[in-house]
């Protein structure tokens, strides 16, 4: 009895030490790749720092005051939200539509399922170069085709004026990322039990009713995850927009990521850029909290 009371805490302590030892690598990696950059960004945001030298003066919350009182952050936040909602909506519609199509017993289904992933696998730089060529005012296939069809009299300025630039960016973003939705939705579609559809047919449900009453409710859980993940990824999208429009015309397509980049590397104001990043992170935190809530913290 005496032995048991003295040995159990010792064993527990040994297990605890072993547990700490086993979890230590994860903690170290987590601290290095997440905690340190996060704290560094917050720390930098309290200084006025010249980027190439990373030297500067402590300015307290001045960068945050500039963020709150200036127009740049709020304008870019508005642009980011327009871009995110626009491209995400299209991705979901296109992705679900294509997944439904590829779920049917069509010819060359395997080939089609492979090809539909092509935009997602393509390098963003290559994809943007192709789209810039398609959108080109003088030689672009888009203008050429529309003029041949008689829809346009003169070439359209796709990327240099509003709202065309935002529409163009949203279209290219949807094209590039909708395959992710296809993969996830298609996987879920294949697990929906057939008897649910049989029961619906027996009840007299047509194809549209079956979609709304059977398919969509079954897809709900996967769609919630897709929407939240893609919303986070689209919110911080940089390369596609930067390469397509550079944020222009004026600042009409300048999202928060581009604003941070502009501040850090064009104006060499790393402190202000860090403050914008922290602001951006706080907005993204909302997405993350929703995600955690919807997925039950799994």
């Amino acid at each position, binding site marked *: 009895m005496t032995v048991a009371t003295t040995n159990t805490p010792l064993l527990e302590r040994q297990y605890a030490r072993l547990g700490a030892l086993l979890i230590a690598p994860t903690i170290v990696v987590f601290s290095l790749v997440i905690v340190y950059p996060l704290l560094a960004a917050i720390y930098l945001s309290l200084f*006025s720092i*010249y*980027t*190439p*030298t*990373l030297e500067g003066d402590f300015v307290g919350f001045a960068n945050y005051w500039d963020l709150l009182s200036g127009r740049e952050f709020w304008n870019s936040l508005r642009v980011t939200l327009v871009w995110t909602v626009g491209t995400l909506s299209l991705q979901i519609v296109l992705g679900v539509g294509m997944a439904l199509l590829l779920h049917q017993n069509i010819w060359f289904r395997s080939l089609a399922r492979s090809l539909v992933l092509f935009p997602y696998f393509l390098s963003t730089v290559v994809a943007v170069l192709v789209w810039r060529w398609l*959108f*080109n*005012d*003088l*030689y672009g296939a888009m203008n050429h085709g529309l003029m041949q069809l008689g829809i346009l009299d*003169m*070439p*359209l*300025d*796709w*990327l*240099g*004026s509003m709202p065309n630039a935002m529409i163009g960016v949203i279209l290219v973003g949807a094209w590039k990322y909708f395959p992710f939705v296809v993969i996830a939705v298609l996987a879920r579609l294949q697990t929906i039990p057939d008897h649910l559809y049989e029961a619906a047919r027996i009840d007299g449900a047509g194809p549209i009713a079956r979609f709304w009453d059977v398919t969509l409710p079954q897809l709900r859980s996967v769609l919630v995850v897709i929407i939240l993940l893609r919303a986070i990824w689209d919110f911080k999208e940089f390369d596609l927009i930067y390469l397509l*429009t*550079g*944020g*222009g*015309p*004026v*600042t009409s397509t300048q999202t928060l990521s581009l604003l941070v*980049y*502009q501040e*850090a*590397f*064009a*104006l*060499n*104001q790393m402190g202000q850029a860090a403050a914008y990043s922290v602001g951006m992170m706080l907005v993204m935190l909302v997405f993350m909290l929703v995600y955690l809530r919807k997925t039950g913290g799994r």
Partner: protein
Amino acid sequence: MKKSSFTSPALPRRSVLTGMAAAGAMAAMPRRLVAQEQITIRWWSPQSSPEQLAAYQTQIANFEAQHQNVKVVFEKTSDEGYAPQLAAAFASGDVPNVVTHLPSFAVSNYWRNGLLEPFNDVIEMIGPEKFYPGANDGYEVDPGQYAGTSIGNSAANMMWLRTDLMEAAGIESAPRTWDEMLAAMEAMQGGGIWGAPLPYGRNSMTSLIFIGVIHQAGGQVFSPDLQVAIDTQETRDALEFYKAMRQYCPPGATNYSWGDSLTAFVSGACATGIYTGRVLINVNTQNPGIADNVTCALYPTKSADIPHWTFNDFPSVFIPKAAPNMEATKQFAAFLFDPEGYIQQLHAAPGHVLPVLQTISADPAYQDNPIIEKYSAEVDKMAAAAANGYNLGRESAEHQPNAKAGEIVNSGVIAELVQRVVLNDENADQVLGETTARIEEIMAG
């Protein structure tokens, strides 16, 4: 007893010993060379057409042949991308050894922040007397200290013209004033051909070209003592002219940068162009059908009494202070001006980057190039314009060097001024007021 060969009168002992010593020294020499540390020199440039890359490889090979322990690696950057790349390089300490072809106004900012190695030694190695007079003035940011030097000159806002289209439109000579320019545009535009590929994008080209237009209106961005002086009637006139030109530019000019603008003229889509002498090689290789009908002139001004203003970005060479192997780096920087390689580099895009050394301009080897021979009048015109050229880093001979010019260009504040007034039709007075405030903020930052 057999005589030893060492005592042979035909081969005296002294000769044998001398030979052995020499052989020993020879044998030791490779070991000494091998023992030298192998070093790598990294060279960055935004100028990297295939012809230029070939010229760089020749220069690298020649230098490596003379310095067997040195390996030179060329790395591309870009006109729009160098600022962030260099900022990251400086911040991390992982800097290139030599950077070439960046505009001179980018250099002074790095110098002022203590990021560059003084270039005086390299200029001495090249020979200061070989440079055109005043060629290095823009790099003397602090008295007696050079932040870099020019690897060439450029006349970046030359007006390129199609003589066949001018003739068809009944235009006898290149327009001298804005009114003549607009009339020429009206006459030449049509039949699927646009008037001009002026840039209206949110990029450095729009900023740099429009700074030229302000000067062509008789204005300036800064006063000589670097007070912001952009909110003037001259800038409003420049904006009006730029707005009037919009109808003669392709729809996509709202997103044009250097490459798009160049291609628009070279392809024949526009009757005029605005670019450096790179037009010449591109026309001859990509659209030879118009090669005999291409000429250039200085870009028109608001009225004939306003002198022309040429944008010369003074393509630079500089060395980051944190670069390793400084001695070899300086030797390589000076070697870039070695006539054989330098001329090949200039010939890679004849007329695009013009020689900054008088000795090279006069060198028959430089003149011996089919493009330079064919377009000698145009090349001479560009050389003369570039010699009197300026940029935002120094807007005139009276202006102080502006160390913040690079940040002003990179911020896009002037391109945004153009876009807001010309494309969005916003109130010029209000936008100019805001632009002034933003530039003052950058200057104070």
